């Protein structure tokens, strides 16, 4: 099957690795050197470019390097690095799938993720939809916080959501990202004896990531004792900061909300930028551009405000409002009122 090395996460590829009966000790042998090399390479590409390339020179290398990369990451146990890798690997697969035959996408969704998906050919609003997915599976995998992905803005018939090919590829990307993240976060047992070659690879990866890791400041430094008080943040903003803290991948609307909120209460562009270094798909020049844009330094020269509470509710970003929230309709109002009260 041609897609096996492309998509080493599919069931068949995993099965293939298992059938080869590769053990940890085996990985120390010379045969596996190129695979460990490629695994390192995968992670390096993720760190540097935010996307992993597809290399098809040696299918065996491509397939086996994938679980090795995950093994390395779970040994390191850095949630930021794992999240960044998961995003990068999932992006690679997304771009591949857009070019694949429909049947390949169908096969992956059904066998790897056990989704109920089938092929259709339906035209709605001038668009041709090629797939229909059971709404349960759609809801489990859909990227949150993007209004175009809200169920209400999707054609839903008889329990099935219609999707175009690139949209199904995006759902697979999301699901794969989550899967890799959870695989990487499995704590290895302490008795595990790693072959030297692998130990060395782990060290190299840590070394490679160090300069990136160091720039991710600690959130507790958030102008500690200064003019900004995290205590006074509304629950929605606190939740977003918590997600950021854990290296979670924030959807677009969440980033916009956080950036505009922090800029509006007086944080500088560089301070906000440093916070966003924690997002797994961080890209410095892109992020800077976006932050400068909402700060009103570019384009329309409008300084954006964060969305109101009702918009945040619609986007599912107001998950646990507190008592104080009933008095406000805007997160900035929440902050201003709390600060005023705190000073009294």
């Amino acid at each position, binding site marked *: 099957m041609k897609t096996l090395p492309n998509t080493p996460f599919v069931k068949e590829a995993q099965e293939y690795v298992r059938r080869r009966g590769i053990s940890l000790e085996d990985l120390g042998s010379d045969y596996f050197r190129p695979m460990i090399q490629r695994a390192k390479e995968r992670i390096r590409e993720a760190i540097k470019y935010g996307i992993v390339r597809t290399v098809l020179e040696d299918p065996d290398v491509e397939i086996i390097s994938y679980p090795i990369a995950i093994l390395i990451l779970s040994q390191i146990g850095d949630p930021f690095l794992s999240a960044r890798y998961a995003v990068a690997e999932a992006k690679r697969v997304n771009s591949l799938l857009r070019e694949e035959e429909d049947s390949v996408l169908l096969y992956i969704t059904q066998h790897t993720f056990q989704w109920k998906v089938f092929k259709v050919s339906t035209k*709605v*609003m*001038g668009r041709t939809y090629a797939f229909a997915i059971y*709404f*349960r599976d759609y*809801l*489990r995998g*859909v990227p*949150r916080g993007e*209004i*175009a992905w*809200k*169920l*209400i*803005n*999707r*054609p*839903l*018939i*008889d*329990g*099935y959501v219609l999707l175009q090919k690139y949209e199904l590829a995006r759902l697979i990307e999301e699901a794969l990202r989550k899967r890799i993240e959870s695989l990487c976060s499995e704590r290895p047992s302490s008795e595990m004896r790693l072959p030297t070659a692998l130990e060395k690879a782990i060290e190299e990866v840590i070394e490679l990531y160090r300069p990136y890791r160091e720039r991710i400041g600690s959130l507790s430094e958030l102008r500690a004792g200064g003019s900004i008080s995290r205590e006074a943040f509304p629950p929605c903003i606190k939740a977003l900061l918590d997600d950021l803290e854990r290296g979670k991948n924030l959807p677009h609307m969440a980033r916009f909300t956080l950036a505009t909120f922090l800029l509006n209460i007086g944080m500088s562009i560089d301070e906000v930028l440093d916070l966003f270094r924690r997002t797994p798909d961080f890209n410095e020049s892109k992020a800077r551009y976006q932050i400068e844009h909402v700060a009103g330094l570019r384009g329309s020269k409008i300084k954006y405000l964060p969305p109101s509470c009702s918009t945040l*509710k*619609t*986007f*599912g970003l107001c*998950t646990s409002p507190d008592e104080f929230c*009933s*008095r406000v309709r805007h997160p900035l109002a929440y902050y201003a009122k709390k600060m005023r009260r705190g000073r009294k």
Partner: protein
Amino acid sequence: MNRIVYRVFKNYYRRVAIDDIPCIEKREFAFVLFDRPDVMIRHKAFNSINELKRFLANATPLHAYYSTAYYDHPEARDMDEKVWQGADIVFDIDVDHIPTPCKKIHDRWKCLDCGAHGRGMAPEKCPSCSSKRIDRVSWICDECIKRATDEVIKLIEEYLIKDFGLHEKELKIYFSGHRGFHVHVERKDLIELDQEARREIVDYIKGEGLILSVDVLRRGLPGPSLGDPGWLGRLTRGVYQLISCSDEESLLSMGFPRRDIDYILTYREKILQALGGDHPYWGYVAKLSKKAWKLIMGYVKQNYACMIDERVTTDIKRLIRLPGSIHGKTGMRVVKVELDELEGFNPFERARIIKGELKVYVREKLSIKLGGYTITEGAQTLPFQIALYLICRGRAEPLE
């Protein structure tokens, strides 16, 4: 609480047959008893329907609830120890959340902090002091029930069956014993859906977050048509309906700008013709102002969305009234209703727990019609069930 009420409840629970509850051993139960009406006893668990029945017959609860959630250890006191496995999806339609014109006549509210009061639907917080401690006196009249049943039918036929593809036999409808209905979805593969996923379902049904920007239409991209699935069709039908039925006065009262009103009235025929058919043309509608478009979207939502109580559906650890139990504030039972029984539903018949008549003294003028009976002030003989309802609401005394 009145002795008569206790006796009626006790009799009921002695002979009642409680419907089977799927996975009863994984659910948490909770009760309020007659002698401690302010305490909820929680974390009860039962292994079988018979065990539950025995408990009900012995304890005669004033209120009884069970969890929509399934737990490994439903009896554990701590949520973490309970270990959540999943939860049924439940929809709640309650007249409390639906503005009906008759509420102005029969409902009252009073602020417990500042004493402000008024008629009609109770505000969420007091308009004069913002307190949330509000005492509501609310009734179900025949008109309110009608509104609620219409809403349930819409929920089931338009949304759950057509859009979500659920089957009628997977849906169980219960009269809540008071002012509304619960619809339980019994489909195994949905019980694990998390809160966020349930919120998406709620938003869909309530019409929240619907976008079809007028900008898109202005760019000449194809728009939806009358027969499109789900909200696309609803939206088109809503726009069509608004434009075809409204006159100058109604558009003005909705707040449409003058320019848009003139435009709609002048080109009405043309707009409607363009919108009909399989390949509608939205170019004319796109000429309306942003303000008008916003009003249109509001109109569509108001007319097509379904008024479910979002808190019930999104709460995956909710306690809900036990089917077959009696609602202690009304003396009516939580009873299963078939879809085709909803039209003309009379709670005093279908949710009845006692037959016969009772003479009561009604303490105040209520201006309300219950189950076809007009209630007057003073002594009167009423069907026992209606009398019981008035006694439970604290508005009447038995005279026997």
